[in-house]
């Protein structure tokens, strides 16, 4: 990729268009997919797609490998749940409160872990995630503990929920595209590649890192809040490290540091795991093995492989035409 197609603006534009195609396919799916069960599966896979996009913002774009995305989804789900359970606050307030709440907690966590990199950051965010989960599990009086909490739903219509998720995925995707095209996105990439270097060039690392944390956590919180109202039950299991593992798997398989990768990765992994459930529950073995294989040998993930092929194929086609 040694021509103008390797420029970030170009890579991002191609990436965004591909992601839009995926969203279009999702939007058209109910024409053929009508079973509520299958729609439900697609909704859950979009929940994971949102988490994957949120985590990818932080890890793939800004280079901060947090192990807490699932914990933030859990927090985002509990906020509307608790607001309703204790104070009968409506979801119209509860869901935005969940998003803002997770953004604030994410911002604070970002401030606190500012100086930590690599394994130190991974351990600190892992601890945060586990503490959050243990506290929620054990605060029975407030959260009803491991038993979980019933949450009201936004609507009864499954198709309605389906399109709500499609719309949210689209909005988040477009938001990511515009941010990544702006100076903020470029500063994140710089921080990811060399934090000290970024600082020396005059990039306010503190500000942009905490911003990445806040936005990423807000996306995860949004995903959790919506998912909670969809499943009408939130429990500490949403925040299990295993869930974070699944999200990482989706991003790594799909292609980290891209827009299409997390989206496609989440859909493929979740749909395939539903399919494999029928084949003797081997899905987690397959996906964890795939994560290792992709991380080891295909670091750009599925989307990276496709994008590179596309770019390579073009000059050859041009040469053939001559």
């Amino acid at each position, binding site marked *: *990729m*040694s*021509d*103008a*197609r*390797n*420029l*970030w603006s170009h890579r991002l534009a191609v990436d965004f268009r591909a992601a839009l195609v995926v969203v279009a396919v999702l939007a058209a799916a109910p024409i053929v997919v009508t079973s509520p069960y299958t729609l439900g599966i697609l909704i859950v896979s979009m929940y994971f797609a949102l988490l994957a996009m949120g985590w990818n913002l932080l890890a793939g774009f800004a280079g901060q490998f947090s192990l807490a995305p699932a914990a933030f989804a859990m927090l985002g789900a509990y906020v509307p749940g608790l607001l309703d359970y204790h104070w009968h606050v409506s979801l119209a307030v509860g869901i935005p409160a969940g998003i803002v709440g997770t953004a604030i907690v994410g911002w604070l966590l970002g401030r606190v872990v500012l100086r930590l990199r690599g394994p130190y950051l991974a351990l600190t965010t892992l601890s945060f995630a586990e503490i959050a989960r243990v506290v929620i599990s054990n605060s029975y009086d407030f959260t009803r503990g491991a038993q979980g909490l019933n949450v009201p739903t936004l609507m009864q219509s499954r198709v309605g929920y389906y399109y709500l998720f499609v719309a949210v995925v689209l909005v988040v995707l477009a938001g990511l595209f515009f941010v990544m095209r702006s*100076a903020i996105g*470029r*500063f994140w*990439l*710089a921080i*990811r*590649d*060399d934090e*000290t*270097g*970024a*600082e*020396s*060039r*005059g*990039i*306010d*690392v*503190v500000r942009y890192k905490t911003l990445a944390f806040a936005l990423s956590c807000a996306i995860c919180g949004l995903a959790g809040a919506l998912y909670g109202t969809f499943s009408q039950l939130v429990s500490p299991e949403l925040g299990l490290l295993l869930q974070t593992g699944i999200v990482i798997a989706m991003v790594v398989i799909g292609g980290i*540091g891209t827009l299409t990768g997390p989206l496609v990765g989440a859909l493929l992994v979740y749909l395939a795991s539903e399919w494999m459930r029928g084949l003797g529950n081997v899905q987690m073995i397959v996906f964890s093995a795939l994560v290792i294989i992709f991380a080891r040998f295909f670091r750009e993930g599925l989307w990276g492989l496709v994008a590179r092929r596309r770019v390579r194929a073009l000059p050859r086609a041009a040469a053939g035409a001559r």
Partner: protein
Amino acid sequence: MTLLRTEGLAKHFGGVAAVDDLALAVEEGEILGLIGPNGSGKTTALNMLSGFLVPDRGSVWFADENVTGKKPVALARRGLLRMFQTTRVFVRISAFDNLLTAGLARGLDEAEARERARVLLEELTLTPVMYLDAGQLSGGQRKLLEFGMCFIAPPRLALLDEPFAAVHPVMRETMARFIRRRNEEGHTFLVVSHDMPIVVELCDRAACMNAGRLIAIGATRDVLQDPVVIEAYLGSESHV
């Protein structure tokens, strides 16, 4: 006018005094060479000047403002930029995007940054590799790219740490030319270097450090012929 000034600057690592009571002044418009044997504290001094290390004692003044303990970002905003001994480019984006990012970081708008990036790439002979990821560039090309990132919005003072070390002679010449030209336009440099011929050719004045202390400062030729300086270099040689 004195652009940068330090008073009694000191930094210890454990028991080692990496920099000890350093008083240094860089005059506006000059190229000051900072020489000294390995481990004499040049990089540590630069780290304190650019805000990457907080001094144990002493103060740093930039354009008559006390900037001691200010963060690198704050200093960069005031026009005090530094380059590292080992290059720090953004390896997973293209060389062109590196320049663009640096321009945006210095407050240029995107169109302006793009324009300046193209001019700089040409001047630095990097146009043929501008679309390669910076990680694919050679060491010398990365150094040139860093020059570009530094000068996409010209700094008031550029601190360069060993820019000529381990660089192909042709590129070394490109760099020296770049520095000289910018200097003629009025830019100020503090250059840490081991390459004596280039120091002689490039620098108006030179300062020499040894064991964390400033042992000589003055016209470049005088400093290089100073017996104390020769002694310091010979002394370090015999240790190797």
